């Protein structure tokens, strides 16, 4: 039939997958994800759906340190084989890694974001919450012990932004049904997992390299959502600062917890991945637990290098794309504005004598509170800058 042929032709074009299993999930079928997928949708007219099998490895971190967890994730990704077109082999199964971890309270910003714009730097310092820049894209999230993160690493030619989120939704929805709860999860156009009230319960971010990719996301189980506004939104003081410049901006969404225990979530996720991507009959399958003590000496060296990078000011703040940071007085008149690139002050604009006097010495310093404050006299401005930067 002509329409069937047309349908098949459409399905063969990457990105236009009319994958029947997607209809089951509460998702708008017209919102095609232009995923970086070179995978052809199966055009077979037979009823049996071929299950793509993988060599699945599951890791769970016992560490609560966001530095260790993000570094270990990066280490797993570096070690993940790059599947290029000429290395594709039909006999060996491709690898797929699922890594689950929980961090203590920390704010994680995306690779190309501006921390001064996206977070309340002063509030983070006050609450002693670390700020970490991750290596994948996307926006800003608050992690705490009520949030479990999942990270899925896959070969580059089967990269799909929604596949694993949909899998988790189906698995969790059956758990909710069993428990008699009303919660129904689905994936929206922004690749977030939302509940039946359109409240976000999971955000996602991705990283693509040659031959491989990963998708990681949060899952709000029992998180302290009240801390979000305290740490991320701008308070009265920080509203007197404006940040102008490129960089990815976070999109705010109302959030909600799904209220199950982390153990239940972890078990559900592992069972779902095993069911979907393995034959299930592998008796040798085991979950690998990792933490700072269980890694080998060679691994430790590499992981510590990444930890140092994540902890460094240069990576967290210094690698912000060029921006202008304006400080205003209470009546919104401009006081001073700094043009900062790669962590160094390029230019300063101000009518105030407190700054114009020392303009030459300020230009060229690192944009850190202590450094800038040491170059000016005014006590009031010293205090303000030390707090804000």
């Amino acid at each position, binding site marked *: 039939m002509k329409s069937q042929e047309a349908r098949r032709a459409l399905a063969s074009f990457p990105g236009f997958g009319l994958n029947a299993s997607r209809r089951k999930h509460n998702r708008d079928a017209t919102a095609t994800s232009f995923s970086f997928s070179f995978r052809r949708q199966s055009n077979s007219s037979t009823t049996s759906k071929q299950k793509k099998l993988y060599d699945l490895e599951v890791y769970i971190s016992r560490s609560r340190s966001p530095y260790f967890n993000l570094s270990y994730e990066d280490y797993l990704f570096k070690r993940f084989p790059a599947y290029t*077109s000429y290395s594709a082999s039909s006999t060996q199964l491709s690898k797929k890694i699922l890594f689950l971890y929980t961090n203590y309270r920390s704010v994680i910003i*995306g*690779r*190309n974001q501006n921390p001064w714009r996206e977070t309340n730097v002063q509030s983070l310092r006050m609450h002693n919450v670390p700020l970490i820049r991750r290596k994948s894209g996307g926006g800003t999230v608050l992690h705490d012990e009520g949030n479990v993160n999942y990270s899925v690493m896959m070969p580059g030619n089967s990269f799909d932004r929604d596949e694993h989120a949909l899998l988790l939704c189906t698995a969790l929805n059956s758990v909710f049904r069993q428990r008699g709860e009303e919660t129904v999860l689905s994936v929206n156009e922004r690749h977030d997992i939302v509940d039946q009230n359109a409240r976000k319960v999971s955000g996602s971010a991705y990283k693509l*390299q040659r031959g491989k990719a990963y998708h990681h996301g949060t899952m709000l189980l029992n998180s302290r959502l009240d801390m979000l506004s305290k740490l991320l939104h701008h308070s009265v003081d920080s509203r007197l600062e404006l940040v102008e410049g490129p960089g*990815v901006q976070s999109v705010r969404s109302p959030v909600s917890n799904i209220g199950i225990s982390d153990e239940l979530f972890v078990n559900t996720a592992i069972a779902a991945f095993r069911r979907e991507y393995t034959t299930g009959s592998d008796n040798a399958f085991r979950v690998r637990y990792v933490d700072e003590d269980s890694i080998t000496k060679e691994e430790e060296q590499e992981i510590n290098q990444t930890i140092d990078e994540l902890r460094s000011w240069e990576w967290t703040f210094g690698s912000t794309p060029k921006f202008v940071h304006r400080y205003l007085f209470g009546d919104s008149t401009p006081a001073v504005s700094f043009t900062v690139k790669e962590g160094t002050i390029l230019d300063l604009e101000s009518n105030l004598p407190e700054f114009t006097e020392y303009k030459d010495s300020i230009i060229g310093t690192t944009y850190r509170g202590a450094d800038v404050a040491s170059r000016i006299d005014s006590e009031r401005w010293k205090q303000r800058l030390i707090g804000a930067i």
Partner: protein
Amino acid sequence: MSYQKNILMASTRLAAVRSRLPVAARSAKFVPLLSNRFYSKPTPKTIAPLFTVRRTAPSTSLFNVLGRRSYINSNDEETPEGLRYTEEHEWLALEDGNLAVIGITGYASKALGDVVYVELPSVGASIVAGEPIGAVESVKSASDIYSPVSGEIIEVNEQLDKKPGLVNAEPYRRGWICKILIKDTTELESMMDNNRYQTFIASS
């Protein structure tokens, strides 16, 4: 009456254009009304069923690839002739013999989605072929870009700081990423030309 006359005139014009085309193209369904002497046979439909891939005029010199490119169709979905391509969907244009201009292809930029940020390499950095020279962020995904050649980075496209969307809108023109001074031109030989790249896309 005049309606029929117009149709007659149009079909006569069409027939006139058709007769000027090479024999293979005369029976094609799509006929360009502008007489383009270099019109070549369209690629088979199995490759890209949704877009008609119309070939651009071959350039005799690669020099003006980014300069006067009036022969390149304004529809940037088509991969221009005269450029070289990699399996990672980067294109390379050669200027002045050893200055390579690098960018990502229209296919990649479409697959990635709306680019919101481009991480550019630093000017003066020396690069080995296969090394990452930056990244493109789109739809929450940070994708690394790799250099197909070794050399030194002479210039980066500062326009992308303010307008990262140029990578989507004009991937072969204003959306270029960086310019590299090549030391070893033999690396270029392993890159694909337009036809092989089209086949590569079709087969993946």
